[in-house]
């Protein structure tokens, strides 16, 4: 019934539809009537041909066959027809609405552009943050049944005097857990490190994981090529085997499927590639690009007290984490009785593997998501305001539609489809924005955020964006739609005073402004708190002078440098040549950089004190081994005593320096300089090393952590360790000397890579990278939110002023002062904003408590922030109201009166 065009037929149709919807005749009744009419006519036909009535009736009925079945069949078909018709009508209406929506948008391109752009920014930012949250927090780890996997760590109770949140396990402990625990289905130890991979295009330092042969099967992931380690591969002395990560295989082996079986050079020794892991797999993090067997010797698992292994376990079928925790703690408690050294309160703790990896970042990410969600809310409010304003403006048009029979529902649907159109356009643009932003984020240093390699715009993220767009359309489209549906537009047709409709709309918009202001306050306060926290963090004195220092790592493979003499000779030669590079003031080597994470703690014994029970860490400090020059290179001040210089002679002494914290703690009230310590615990003839100096504290564990007890072991003669960080203080830009260092290294041994080249500033900066990123992003969101809220207020006041131009003219003509008029207008925007700010302050006060864990040296209820910011925002609101008000009062009264 829809093929004719033109106004007359459509009105007729409309009329018919109205009538049809009022008198709904069931299909069956129609069928009945139609068929009986036909029957009647047939009877008459036969009678006319001479049959008697009964005969005529019989013959007529015969033509119909089984009448009841016919009626039923026609009834069915009729109902199907109705359904099809309704469906088509619905689609037609929808198409009309969409076309109408597009036309409307084309007519006001500025409004459409503003709405689409703000929506794009809001939806895009939210989607980008969600994609990070999804990749890092929500996506399950790339293992089978990842919720069953736990990480096992040692913890020390406070009574032990050690403040170490988590620590590795020892070999015998791992064996015991595996054998004695029922709750754990499997336990596998592993370790991480880095190795030098030789290749034709130059050696490179690669992150590696050393895994027990049970570990990869425990994770339940099958290799993409080849196989993983078997028990034979894991025996000490087995031929070297390696499994590559997918990324490693792609990047360094060109994705060549023939890589399985090929040989590679690792730390100077040859090994065979036996398999490649699938794409998307990483353990424990993406930094480990190659896997080796751990070589854990179950016959000689090492000392019980020597904690150097990490471990992963899988919960047994049907066992909950709590149950496993309880069981393992009970096992450990038994050890406390059996083994003396456990008496110092040394316990197991389990953590779900996912928390282990992403735990530290979770709060920050969720905070960012909340913040960006609030900004999106501000965006929606703004667009809703825009929509409301336009709805009022389209009063007349909507009134005509209502009169022509568009029911309230239809009007709502029309306006909603316009909103949906805007939202989808904005969402599409926003998705593109998010895609770009996500690409930029993943380009940042991946160690700042774990699992960053899993972040990307995938199906889930796209669905999220689409859902978000629909939700925002509902949010900002509902208000004007509902108002339209209430049929107030018939008033408009009659030319009723606009003020009645206007007042209602104005009140609603004022409420929206209040909401906007409140949300804006919450976002800005949160951003300010986090920003101040970062500021405080960056002002902390690290204890070193990081400017102008170049660092890198050099590691000597055992195969090429088997004896201590060769190692010592290498370092001597290297240090001499490196020191001679022009631009280098001082060069040293040390075992580990501060702020780089990790580091080893050694037990020691001060001379004259009774030795503690074996394995009990009574005296324990973070130890750095290095040449004496490390103090001037790192800029660590010497507080007492003297650091001797390095000589190349054999037999030169090894000395020790301690930091102020260690001195205070282990030698309270005494001067440690001159005393001696030994690190050879429990040996017959321990080597006693003299303490020669007290040096300044370094916040080596992080700027926001407490200073650890530090000791520096300083060989003044030849060096014995095979891997050191090289640190050099330079005049000028440290990076410019990288090639010079490479050259020096190449002269001594071309097979050695200069790895992990960084400036010390970069290292310190990286340790606060997460804080900095969070602060920057929040500040950006807050700025956008504030800007949008200000625009929102401006818009509301400007609009209401425009509508009251006539009133202003009258007042002005009656002699009202310009200023009082301005004040009147400003109240329009400022009052709801101020109320909103007050409300927002309250909300922020409540919410701020949640931020406590993220803040450093900043009280979440910091009075300065809570007083200053609202004042600032109030000022912005006043300004945003004042500008349009002032402009309006500039109009001459006569012009204003002419406005209608």
């Amino acid at each position, binding site marked *: 019934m829809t093929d004719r065009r033109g106004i007359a037929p459509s009105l007729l149709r409309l009329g018919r539809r109205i009538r049809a919807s009022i008198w709904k005749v069931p299909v069956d009744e129609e069928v009945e009537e139609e068929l009986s009419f036909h029957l009647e006519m047939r009877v008459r036909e036969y009678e006319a041909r001479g049959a008697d009535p009964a005969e005529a009736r019989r013959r007529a009925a015969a*033509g119909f*066959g089984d009448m009841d079945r016919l009626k039923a069949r026609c009834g069915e078909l009729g109902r199907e027809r109705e359904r099809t018709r309704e469906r088509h009508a619905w689609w037609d209406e929808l198409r009309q609405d969409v076309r109408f929506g597009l036309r409307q948008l084309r007519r006001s391109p500025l409004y459409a552009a503003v709405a689409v752009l703000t929506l794009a920014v809001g939806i895009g930012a939210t989607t980008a943050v969600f994609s990070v949250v999804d990749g890092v927090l929500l996506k399950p780890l790339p293992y089978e049944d990842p919720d069953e996997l736990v990480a096992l760590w040692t913890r020390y109770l406070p009574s032990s005097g050690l403040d170490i949140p988590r620590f590795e396990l020892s070999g015998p402990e791992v064996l015991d857990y595996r054998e004695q625990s029922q709750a754990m289905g499997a336990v596998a130890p592993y370790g991480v490190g880095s190795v030098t991979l030789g290749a034709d295009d130059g050696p490179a330092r690669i992150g590696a994981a050393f895994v027990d042969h049970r570990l990869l099967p425990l994770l339940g992931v099958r290799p993409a090529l080849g196989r993983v380690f078997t028990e034979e591969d894991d025996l000490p002395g087995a031929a070297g085997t390696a499994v590559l990560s997918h990324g490693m295989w792609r990047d360094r082996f060109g994705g060549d499927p023939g890589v399985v079986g090929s040989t590679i050079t690792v730390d100077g020794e040859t090994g065979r590639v036996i398999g490649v892991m699938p794409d998307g797999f990483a353990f424990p993090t993406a930094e480990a690009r190659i896997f080796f067997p751990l070589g854990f010797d179950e016959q000689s698992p090492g000392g019980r007290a020597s904690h150097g292994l990490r471990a992963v376990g899988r919960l047994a079928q049907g066992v909950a984490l709590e149950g496993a925790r309880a069981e393992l703690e009970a096992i450990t408690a038994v050890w406390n009785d059996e083994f003396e050294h456990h008496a110092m309160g040394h316990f197991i703790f389990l953590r779900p593997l996912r928390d282990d990896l992403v735990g530290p970042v979770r709060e920050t990410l969720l905070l960012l998501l909340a913040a960006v969600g609030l900004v999106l809310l501000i965006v929606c409010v703004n667009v809703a305001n825009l929509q409301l304003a336009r709805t009022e403006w389209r009063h007349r048009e909507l009134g005509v539609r209502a009169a022509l029979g568009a029911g309230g529902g239809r009007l709502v649907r029309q306006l909603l489809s316009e909103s949906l159109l805007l939202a989808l356009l904005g969402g599409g643009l926003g998705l593109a924005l998010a895609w770009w932003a996500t690409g930029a984020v993943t380009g940042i240093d991946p160690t700042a955020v774990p699992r960053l390699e899993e972040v990307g715009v995938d199906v889930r993220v796209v669905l999220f964006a689409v859902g978000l767009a629909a939700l925002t359309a509902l949010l900002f489209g509902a208000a004007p739609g509902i108002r339209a549906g209430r049929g107030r537009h018939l008033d408009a047709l009659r030319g009723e005073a606009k003020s009645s409709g206007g007042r209602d709309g104005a009140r609603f918009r004022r409420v929206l402004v209040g909401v906007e202001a409140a949300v804006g306050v919450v976002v800005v306060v949160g951003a300010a708190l986090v920003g101040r926290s970062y500021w405080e963090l960056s002002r902390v004195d690290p204890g070193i002078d990081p400017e102008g220092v170049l660092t890198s790592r050099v590691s000597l493979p055992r195969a090429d440098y088997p004896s201590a003499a060769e190692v010592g000779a290498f370092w001597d030669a290297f240090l001499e040549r490196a020191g001679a590079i022009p631009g280098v003031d001082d060069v040293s080597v040390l075992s580990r950089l501060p702020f780089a994470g990790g580091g080893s703690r050694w037990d020691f014994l001060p001379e004259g004190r009774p030795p503690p029970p074996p394995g009990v860490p009574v005296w324990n400090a973070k130890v750095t081994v290095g040449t004496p020059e490390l103090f001037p290179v790192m800029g660590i001040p010497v507080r007492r005593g003297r650091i001797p210089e390095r000589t190349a002679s054999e037999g030169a002494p090894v000395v020790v320096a301690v930091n102020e914290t260690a001195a205070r703690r282990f030698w309270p009230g005494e001067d440690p300089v001159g005393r001696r310590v030994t690190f050879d615990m429990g040996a017959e003839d321990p080597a006693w090393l003299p303490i020669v100096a007290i040096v300044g504290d370094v916040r080596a564990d992080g700027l926001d952590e407490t200073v650890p007890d530090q000791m520096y072991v300083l060989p003044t003669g030849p060096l014995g360790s095979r891997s050191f960080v090289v640190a050099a203080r330079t005049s000028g830009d440290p990076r410019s000397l990288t090639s010079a260092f490479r050259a020096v290294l190449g002269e001594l041994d071309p097979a050695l890579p200069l790895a992990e080249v960084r400036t010390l500033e970069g290292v310190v900066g990286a340790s606060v990278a997460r804080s900095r990123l969070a602060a920057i992003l929040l500040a950006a969101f807050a700025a956008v939110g504030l800007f949008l809220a200000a625009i929102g207020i401006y818009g509301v006041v400007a609009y209401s002023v425009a509508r009251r131009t006539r009133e202003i003219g009258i007042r002005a003509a009656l002699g009202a002062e310009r200023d009082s008029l301005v004040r009147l207008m400003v109240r329009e925007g400022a009052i709801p904003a101020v109320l909103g700010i007050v409300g927002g302050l309250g909300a922020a006060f409540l919410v701020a408590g949640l931020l406590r864990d993220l803040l450093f040296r900043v009280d979440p209820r910091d009075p300065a922030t809570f007083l200053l910011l609202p004042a600032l925002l109030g000022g912005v609101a006043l300004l945003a109201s004042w500008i349009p008000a002032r402009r309006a009062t500039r109009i001459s009264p006569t012009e204003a009166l002419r406005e209608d």
Partner: protein
Amino acid sequence: MTPPQGTHLHGTLDALILKTLSHGPRHGYGVARWIEETTGETIRVEEGSLYPALYRLEKQGFLASEWGRTELDRRAKFYRLTEKGESRLGRETEEWRRFMEGVCRVLLPSFAAEAM
């Protein structure tokens, strides 16, 4: 009408209905009578086939219906051909012509030779 066996069972009746309505809107009885009169009572339309066909054609969009009044002022449901129905009629006619050609060539070669 004894329905012919084979592929054109529905098709023939559909085509007849569409063609009938191409001359103007009619009610169901009118369609039946027109076909019967035009074929000289050779083809007799059974209501048991006619109405399902009419309803089906309407559902498919080839016909449209509305209630109206006959000359004798009785209420009846009138069917008319839609644009979609017109093109369908053209196709059906063409198909029928080809079918007929084929059969003619087999059964009545001389007649076929004359008519084609």
